[in-house]
C-alpha cells in the first residue's frame, strides 16, 4: 500500500471513479489546467480531457446551478468551490434546488452531485479562506454534509459520496491536506455516508469531533491517558448530517460524560445538535454537563491570531478535566 496525504488520497478517488464511470465530471475554477489551487485535481485534465475536467468562468452559482442540471440529466458532477468561504454565492442553488429537486419532482429526478470544498483554519490564509460553517448545510433538509479527517477515510467517503443518489457537501479540512500520510490501498474502499466511527475506545469520557479537529482531540485523549489515566472514547463524526446519534448516545451511556469539539463558531453550531441528541437519548446516564470546545462567536481572525481562535489539544484537555471533575 502506498502512503498518501489527503490531497493524494482524494486525487486517487477521483482518478478511479472517473475511470469507472463516464458520468463523473469535474468542474470548477482552476480545476483543469492548474489542477486545483491545492493540486487536488492533479493529472485529471491530462488524462480525461477538458470535456470531463472543466475550468469554468468565475461564478459559484453558475457552477452549482450547472451541476444541478448535469445531475438531473443523469451525470455525476463533482464541482469544486475553491474555498468554503465562497459557497455562500451559491447558497440559493443548494438550498432551493439541489436539496429540493427530488422532492419537487416527487422522485422523478434526483441530484447526485458532490460539492467539494476546502474548509477550516490553520493555513495562514486570507480572509474568507478559513471558515468552518458546516452547520449551514447540516440544517438544510435534502443535503448531506460530510467531513473526512484523514487520507484513507477521505478517499473512501468521497467514493461513497460520488455514488450517493443525493447531493453531498464534502468539506475537505485544508489544514489536513498535507499534514500527514496514511496507507491507502490501491483497491477501492468505500465508507457509508451517515455513519460515525469510534476511533478510540474508552470508558471514562466520550469525545466527539471531526475533520481537522480529530488530531488535537486524539492528542488530548492520549495526554489524558498518560497524565491522568483517563480512558477517553473518541468518535469521528465523518457525516455531520444526516446525523446518526446512536453510536454517540451508546458511548455516553457507558461514559456518562462528553466533550464536543469543532472549530465552527459555538452558538447554533454543530455541537449544540450533538449535545441535544445526547440529552434526548442518554439524559439519565449523564453525570456532568457536556462541554463544547469550539471556535468563538466571531469571524476567525487573520492568521496572526488564528491559533488563539482554533481549539487545540490543551484546550480540549482542560475541558475534559472540567467535565471529569464533576462528581
Amino acid at each position, binding site marked *: 500500500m502506498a502512503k498518501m496525504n489527503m490531497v493524494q488520497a482524494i486525487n486517487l478517488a477521483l482518478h478511479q471513479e472517473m475511470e469507472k464511470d463516464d458520468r463523473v465530471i469535474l468542474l470548477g475554477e482552476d480545476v483543469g489546467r492548474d489542477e486545483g489551487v491545492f493540486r487536488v485535481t492533479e493529472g485529471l485534465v491530462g488524462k480525461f480531457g477538458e470535456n470531463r475536467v472543466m475550468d469554468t468562468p468565475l461564478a459559484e*452559482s453558475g457552477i452549482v446551478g450547472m451541476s444541478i442540471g448535469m445531475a438531473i440529466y443523469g451525470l455525476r458532477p463533482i464541482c469544486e468551490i475553491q474555498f468554503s468561504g465562497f459557497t455562500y454565492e451559491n447558497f440559493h442553488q443548494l438550498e432551493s434546488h439541489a436539496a429540493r429537486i427530488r*422532492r419537487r419532482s416527487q422522485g422523478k429526478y434526483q441530484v447526485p452531485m458532490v460539492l467539494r470544498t476546502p474548509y477550516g483554519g490553520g493555513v495562514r490564509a486570507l480572509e474568507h479562506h478559513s471558515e468552518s460553517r458546516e452547520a449551514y448545510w447540516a440544517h438544510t*433538509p435534502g443535503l448531506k454534509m460530510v467531513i473526512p479527517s484523514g487520507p484513507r477515510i477521505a478517499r473512501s467517503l468521497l467514493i461513497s459520496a460520488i455514488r450517493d443518489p443525493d447531493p453531498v457537501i464534502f468539506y475537505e479540512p485544508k489544514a489536513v491536506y498535507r499534514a500527514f500520510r496514511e496507507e491507502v490501498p490501491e483497491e477501492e474502499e468505500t465508507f457509508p455516508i451517515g455513519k460515525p466511527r469510534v476511533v478510540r475506545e474508552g470508558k471514562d469520557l466520550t469525545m466527539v469531533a471531526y475533520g481537522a479537529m480529530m488530531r488535537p482531540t486524539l492528542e488530548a485523549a492520549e495526554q489524558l491517558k498518560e497524565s491522568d489515566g483517563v480512558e477517553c472514547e473518541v468518535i469521528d463524526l465523518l457525516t455531520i448530517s444526516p446525523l446518526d446519534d446512536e453510536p454517540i448516545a451508546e458511548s455516553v451511556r457507558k461514559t456518562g460524560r462528553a466533550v464536543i469539539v469543532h472549530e465552527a463558531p459555538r452558538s447554533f453550531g454543530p455541537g449544540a445538535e450533538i449535545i441535544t441528541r445526547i440529552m434526548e437519548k442518554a439524559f439519565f446516564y449523564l453525570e456532568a454537563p457536556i462541554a463544547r470546545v469550539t471556535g468563538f462567536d466571531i469571524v476567525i481572525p487573520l492568521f496572526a491570531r488564528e491559533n488563539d481562535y482554533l481549539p487545540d489539544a490543551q484546550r480540549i484537555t482542560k475541558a475534559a478535566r472540567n467535565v471529569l471533575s464533576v462528581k
Partner: protein
Amino acid sequence: MPRTEIDLPCRVERLSILDEHGELDQSLEPDIPDDFLLKMHRAMLSGRRFDERLLNLQRQGRIGTFAPISGQEAAQLGAAVHLRRDDWMVPCFRESLAETWRGKDPASALLYFAGYDEGGRPEDDRNDLPIAVPVGSQTLHAVGLAWGMKYREKDSVAMTFFGDGATSEGDFHEAMNFAGVFTLPVIFVCQNNQWAISVPRSKQTRSKTLAQKAIAYGIPGIQVDGNDILAVYTAVGEAVDRARKGEGPTLIECETYRIMMHTTADDPKRYRSEDEVNEWKKKDPIVRYQTYLKNKGLLTDKDIEGIEEEIKAEIQTAVEHSEKMMKDSGDPLDMFLHTFQELTPALEEQKEELSRELSERRQEADHG
C-alpha cells in the same frame, strides 16, 4: 489607430410577421401545415380558458394562488412547439400553457395549485423540469442539461423560460455567460410581459431592449412581437436550428403583456392603468391569430364555438379528475417521501412521531 470604434457583432433585430390587426407580412410567413396551425390555435384558446377556470376555482377557495398566463399564449406556445420529446423544457412558474402542450396533465396541475406536492411531478414521458419559483435560478439548470446533451453528443436542446424581471438576477447573467462560453444548445426565451409584479420594464433595466443583453455574452439576441405567434415561431425556430447544429445559445425577447394579475394575491390596479391594459388587449395574440386563420380559410366562428365547447368539457373533466386525485392523495405521512432516496434515522423517528400523533388524534376524534 488611437481612438477607434471596435467592430462588434451587435446587430439586434425585431421581428413581427402578423400585426395586431391580423395583417400578414407574406414574405415572412412561416411554412406551417394547416393542421398544426389549428392545433396551436386550440392550445392557445385552451390555455386562456384554463386560466379563467383556475381563477374562479381560486376565488371559490378550491385552489390556492397561481400565476395566470393570459395574454402570453403566443409568446410561450410559439416557442414550446419547437421542442421534441428528447428536448428539455425548463420553465419558471408562468408556463402552464407550454407545460400542457408538453403533456402536463391539467388535473395534475390543479392538484399542485391545490397545495398537493404530488401535483409537482412532471409526466413520466417528458423531460421537463417542474415549476421553479426562485426567479432566474432555473436558467442555470438549462445550462447544465444542455451541457449533458453536448457531452452525450445529442442534437437536443434545453429551452428555458423566464420573465423580464428575471434578467436582473445574477443567475441569469451566469447562465447566459456559461452557455456562451461552452457553446451550449440553450434557448433563452424571455417572456417580457412588461411587469415584474408592480415594477415596470423601464425600471428593471436601463437598456432599451432585453434582447441586447445577448451582446454582453457574444451570443445572438433578437426581439420579437411576443403576441405574434408566427414571429415567435420563426425566431425560436431559427434559434433551435442553430442550437441543434452546435452553434450555441440564443436569447429571444418576446414582447408581450400579462393581461391578468401577477398571481391571485396581486391587485394590478395598484400600479398600472386600465388604459394600458386596454391598449394591450387590442394586441391580443389569440384574436389576431384567429383573423389570420380565418383569412386563410382554415377557421370559422362556428368552428371556434365548437372548440370552445370541447375545451370547456375537457377542463371540467380535469377539474373533476383532480378532485378525485385529491381524495386519493394527501396522506400526511407522504411528506417524508423524497427528501432523500432513503429515509434517514432521524426522519424515520420523525415520521413515526407524526404517525403516532395522527392516530391519537383520530382516536380522540372518534371518542369525542
